[in-house]
Structure formats: structure tokens, C-alpha cells
């Protein structure tokens, strides 16, 4: 007879299986519960008017429009400010920087910046952009603060994408007499682009979800009009949701839930876009 495993071993196997499966279920259950409550509270409040109307003191008439537009402004500023700088820094570190103390210092700094709590970026933004540069509580100050917040994410993701390009591609270009920059622009960047794009989408989606730093740099809940310029006052989706939740009236609670649905839908859409970009180009890999 072949009977190696004892009864005790088999019992341990079953128990372990049950425990780890339960652990996996906790995450799913939490998500389902969250989505369930939010959908139940907010779905009824969701309508075209909700997306089009400005906020109001009356929960029945309040809308999400200024918050959505404010977030779009922030996104635009982040795309213009953080992405070129982040991708540029990644190219420098991967392709140009000599290994040395300065490079190590920059690398350590970026790695640490990625772990700094977002509220600290808010304080920095308040001190530097709002007061130091005198931008005031403007959408520009908010966007630049968000740009700082996502910069390390962009740098790290772009570096990984560039590093994933096989060195043989780089050697081929350089052996043909390309300068470093010609090799980067002509071959390495195009090959790394899908990875860079994926990282950038995720970075921007992180900026959309952040609330804490915006509270410090002047996003306020009650703004009647969307920004009409970089100096405008503004609000953003998570800030608006945060303020609605703080109100005592029940009407605002369902407003907040409706806002959460919109915010989640946009975030999920962006994450899905990142996955699509990645999968689409993954098949086209070099051998």
C-alpha cells in the first residue's frame, strides 16, 4: 500500500486551504459590500442633470459639474507638467547618467518620494506654489502639487519600461553610428512607449483619486463655476464628495454616493485603458 500522508497531514492541508481561500474572499467581499452600498445609495441620484449642474445648498438641486471639470483641469496640468518631466528624468537615469554618487542620490530620492504620504505633498504645495510662488489657491497650484505627487510614479514606471527594451536594440542602433539621443528617440522610446503609457495612465488616475493634498492647496467644496483659467478657484471630485459626506442632511449622502459612482467609473475606465494598452502591445514583442 502506498499511504504516505497521515491523517494529520491531510487535515492540515484542508485547513490551510480553507484559511487562504477565506483570506482571498475578504478582499472580494469588501469590494462587493462597498459597491453594493454605494450603488444602492447613489444610483437613484445619478442622472444627466447631476453631471451638468453646479453645486447647491439644496441637495435636490446640487450637481457634480464643477467638480468634474475641476478634476479635468487638474488632469490636464498633470499631463503637461508631470509627464514630460517624469519621462525625461527616466530617460536621463536609464540612458545618459553615469553610475556615480549623484545618480545614486537621485535614484534614492525618487524611490523615497514615491513613499511620502500625500498630505506632505499638500504642505509642500501650500508652502511652495500657493505662498512661495504666489499662485494662491488656484487650479494651477493644485495641478502642480498633484504633478509633484505623481512624478515619482511616472519616473519609476518609465524607467522600468525603458529597461525592458533589450540591450541588443540599443547596441544595434549605436553600432550603426547613432548618437545616444538618436538611439533613444529612434528605437528605445518607441519600443518602450506602451509601458510608459501604461505607467502614465495609472499615475494620472492616482492624481484623480487624491484628496488630502488638494484640501491644503485650496480646493474648496463650494465653487459655483468651473475654472475658466489657470488662476481660477476650483474643486475636484474627491473633495466635493468629502464635503457632501460631511453634511448632516440625508440628501447629501446620496449625492456623495452618486459622486463616488462617477469617480469609480472614471478610475476603472482609466485602469482598463492601461490594461488594454499593455496587452495590445505585449503580443508584438521582439524575440
Amino acid at each position: 500500500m502506498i499511504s504516505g500522508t497521515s491523517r494529520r497531514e491531510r487535515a492540515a492541508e484542508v485547513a490551510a486551504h480553507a484559511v487562504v481561500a477565506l483570506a482571498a474572499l475578504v478582499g472580494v467581499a469588501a469590494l462587493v459590500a462597498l459597491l453594493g452600498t454605494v450603488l444602492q445609495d447613489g444610483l437613484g441620484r445619478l442622472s444627466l442633470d447631476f453631471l451638468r449642474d453646479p453645486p447647491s445648498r439644496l441637495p435636490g438641486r446640487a450637481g457634480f459639474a464643477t467638480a468634474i471639470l475641476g478634476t479635468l483641469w487638474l488632469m490636464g496640468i498633470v499631463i503637461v507638467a508631470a509627464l514630460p518631466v517624469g519621462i525625461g528624468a527616466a530617460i536621463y537615469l536609464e540612458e545618459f547618467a553615469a553610475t556615480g554618487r549623484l545618480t545614486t542620490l537621485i535614484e534614492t530620492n525618487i524611490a523615497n518620494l514615491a513613499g511620502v504620504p500625500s498630505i506632505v505633498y499638500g504642505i509642500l504645495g501650500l508652502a511652495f506654489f500657493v505662498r512661495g510662488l504666489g499662485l494662491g489657491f488656484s487650479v494651477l497650484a493644485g495641478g502642480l502639487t498633484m504633478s509633484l505627487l505623481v512624478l515619482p510614479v511616472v519616473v519609476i514606471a518609465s524607467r522600468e519600461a525603458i529597461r525592458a527594451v533589450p540591450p541588443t536594440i540599443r547596441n544595434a542602433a549605436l553600432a550603426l553610428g547613432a548618437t545616444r539621443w538618436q538611439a533613444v528617440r529612434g528605437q528605445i522610446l518607441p519600443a518602450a512607449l506602451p509601458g510608459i503609457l501604461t505607467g502614465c495612465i495609472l499615475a494620472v488616475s492616482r492624481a484623480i483619486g487624491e484628496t488630502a493634498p488638494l484640501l491644503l492647496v485650496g480646493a474648496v467644496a463650494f465653487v459655483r463655476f468651473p475654472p475658466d483659467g489657470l488662476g481660477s478657484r476650483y474643486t475636484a471630485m474627491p473633495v466635493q464628495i468629502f464635503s457632501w459626506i460631511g453634511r448632516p442632511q440625508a440628501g447629501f449622502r446620496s449625492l456623495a454616493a452618486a459622486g463616488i459612482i462617477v469617480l469609480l467609473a472614471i478610475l476603472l475606465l482609466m485602469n482598463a485603458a492601461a490594461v488594454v494598452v499593455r496587452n495590445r502591445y505585449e503580443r508584438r514583442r521582439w524575440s
Partner: protein
Amino acid sequence: MTGSPLGAAVEQDGAMTVATASGLTTSEIVYRVNDLEVRYGGEPAVTDLTLDIAPREITAIIGPSGSGKSTFLRCLNRMNDLVSGAEVVGRVEYHGHDLYAPEVDAVEVRRRIGMVFQQPNPFPKSIYDNVAFGPRLRERRPAGLADRVEAALTRAALWDEVKDKLKSNALSLSGGQQQRLCIARALAVEPDVILMDEPASALDPIATARIEDLMAELKRDYTIVIVTHNMQQAARVSDRTAFLTTDVSPGGGRVGRLVEFDSTDVIFTAPSDARTEGYITGRYG
């Protein structure tokens, strides 16, 4: 493009006709390597290398792993500059010019000396764009680019196979085709030397034979230096063969050293060094 690769000074150098061991004049010699040593992080990887490379010939570099064959090859187009910690001591003359003189631009050197790598490494782009990459480095819209692409592909014996699909991705080609594409890509910048680092070691025997035929064809116009693990290949294609081996360096590490450099016939039939004979008869390496 032969003649005066690094400037008009070559013509003047050509006036000196000093006979050399290989029976060539200094003006004809493509590379004159003298007492070359390459160090990585201070440790010598190959040392004491002295040899001349003759024009329109195939020079094979053979030897066991770690004997510094590829390291040596990468000195000939300054690809070693890209390895951090690499240091080249000694002299490499290219048509009479010190390749490592401070005023020499390594990028310019690589535009005159083509290189083909062990693993076929086409860019993940169209066949046409692969070949056009080199010419496009110098000018945005090179004159007669389509003709140059066709000429390079024809010389690399690939034109007939790809002429109807120049726009398709180079990675859709077979390994052997990819390697010939890489040769075409190198030819398109009109070099006078082609360095090949084990160009057929990743290919099947049929694809290998095609590359070897191509090399025999190309040596009419180009100087070829090939590193190979395959001794039969060296015997088949090359005119001269350099045999490198590994020695124990004074510091205790392993260092590559030139044992013997002669015409391929001599190396494979009557080598003067016992180590060469041992290697080619398969007793070690």
C-alpha cells in the same frame, strides 16, 4: 566607401610604403593593432594583442570562452566605450589613424565600421525602416533612400525574399533572414569594415551556410573580421585566423592572450604552437 575614411591625411600616410610581416604596405592595412590590452574595472580581460588586419579579407578570431575574442572585436569600432569600467590600453590604428586618439569621435567611427551581433537584433519596425535607420541618422531625407535600401538588401542576399513585404515587421522574418537583414542594415551605412560577433551561432545549419556564402561574396568589397566558436566555420570562410587562449593573469584572474596569427591554411594544417594544435584538434577549449 573605401579610401580615406578618417580624413585626407590617409593619402599622405599612404606615401610611406613600409613592408610588413604580412607582405602588405602600411597604406593597405586596415587595422594595425599594437600591444592592446582591455581592462574591465581594472582587471585585464585580454592583453598583449598585436596583429594586422588586411583589406578585403576575412579574418577569423577563434579561441575558447573567456579568451577575449568579443572584447577584442568591440575595440575595433569602439563599442567597448559603452561598457562602463572598460579601459583600452595600447594602440589600434585604422587606416593609419589612432582610433583612440582624443579627437576621434566614437560615433563617427561606428558609422564607418559596421557590426553584426550574435543574436539577430532587428528593430521592432518594418524591414524597410530597419535598413533605412542608418542612412537617416545623417540626414532626415537621404537622397535615393529607396535605392540604397534595395541595394543593401540585394547585397545581403535578402532582396528577393522581402521585396514584396518591405512594410512588414522585421520580427516576422526567420532567424536567418533577420540576421541577413542586420547585415543589410550595416551595409546601408556604407562601411568599409564589417565586424561579426558569432553571426551564425544562433542559426540552423542551412541559415548558417547562407551567411557563410554571403561573407565570401562580401569580402570582394569589404574587410570582414569574424569572431566564431565554430572552427569549421573559421576554416571554411576565413583567409587569416587568430587564435586566442586564456592565461592566468599576474593578478590571479583569467586573461585572454593571442597565441598565433597566420593564414588560415597554416593555422589549421601546420600550426607552430602546440596550444593552437591542441585547440583545433579538439583536445581542449
